[in-house]
């Protein structure tokens, strides 16, 4: 299950910047527990898939999972040992632009301890620091 858009208007995008914190997708909206990003980064489709597989294997058909991010940004790369110039490289992979605060995954239907362990396994597959959050968390 490779996460990538079915169709895009343009094949290549500029890199952009990741300033500031996330303003949307900050709270646990679907499940009971979630994994929140504590840094900004590009998360690739393979990292998301690895985290998803880690969650699914540990849950072992228990609980329900939501993936709250989607890799919709194409990343290009020039071939190895190529001289500079001659235009932008070919699309290589897809990434999700994640800013600080974004909820990445959500889980429901398992105990808190189980959810914590599951999401920590998923976190180990990602390239950013994350934390476990629950719907009932308050100040």
């Amino acid at each position, binding site marked *: 299950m490779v996460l990538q858009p079915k169709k895009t208007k343009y094949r290549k995008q500029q890199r952009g910047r990741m300033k500031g*914190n996330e303003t949307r997708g*900050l*709270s646990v909206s679907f499940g*009971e527990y979630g994994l*929140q990003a*504590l840094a900004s980064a590009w998360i690739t489709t393979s990292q998301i898939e690895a985290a998803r597989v880690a969650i*699914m294997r540990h849950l072992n*058909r*228990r*609980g*329900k999972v939501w993936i709250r991010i989607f890799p919709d940004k194409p990343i290009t790369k020039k071939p190895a040992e190529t001289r500079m110039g001659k235009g932008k490289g070919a699309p290589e992979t897809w990434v999700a632009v994640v800013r*600080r*605060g974004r909820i990445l995954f959500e889980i*429901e*239907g398992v105990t808190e301890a189980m959810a914590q362990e599951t999401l920590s396994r998923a976190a180990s597959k990602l390239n950013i620091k994350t934390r476990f959050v629950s*719907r009932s*968390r*308050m*100040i």
Partner: protein
Amino acid sequence: MERMKLKAELRDERGTRGAKRLRRKGVVPAVLYGEGPESMAIGVDTKDLSKVLRGKGGEHAIIDLQVEKTSEGKPLKKTVIVKEVQRDHIKDIVLHVDFAAISLTEKLATKVAVVDSGEAVGVTQGGILEHILRELNIECLPADIPERILVDVSGLMIGKSIKVGDIVSPPDVKILNDANLIVFTVSVPKVEVEKVEEVPAEEAAAAGAPAEGEEKKPEEEKEGAKGKEKEGAKGKEKEQQKEKGKEK
């Protein structure tokens, strides 16, 4: 529902910088409006507010708010509900609270949490209990607002659901949500079939020996033998060519 008490002070500091100064002092900026002539900028102690919001009613609690000194110099007491809470989801702090003054004799529309009780039959059979609607919109007198609405899910089978219309509301409480909305359902877990990575033909050939449990068919063996013979013939030809080259 048990009524909570909260003390507040009139707030002079306004704007972003003023609000930040207050937060550093341990005061959460807030506003009080409704049931009165004007709105009032107030500040509440962070710890006290935390206790109220973590209390039984949560964000839907009825609060006796006491402003110690208004602009007229008199203390003010109001019965309020929390209308909105602004949060910093990264620092996990409350940034601002809206308090709305209410009348105890008038009905009001508010939200209340729905909580499941018991273990669904479907869950014991391997299903997943999905909690789809977590809050219900209700209308009642402030004194009748329940802390939460308990829903017994113990009889829920796989594929079955509990809708808003199935929930028995407490007396004097009217549920405003559409009766057809699903609150709880027990679904069958999705079985994920993991794809076995296909090994390229060259790598498989390099591996040589067949995998366990596999037996070569006689035809394949014959073809294999033919291939070996061919390879052998080619090798001989090459050797002969090399020898000729040396002689030259």
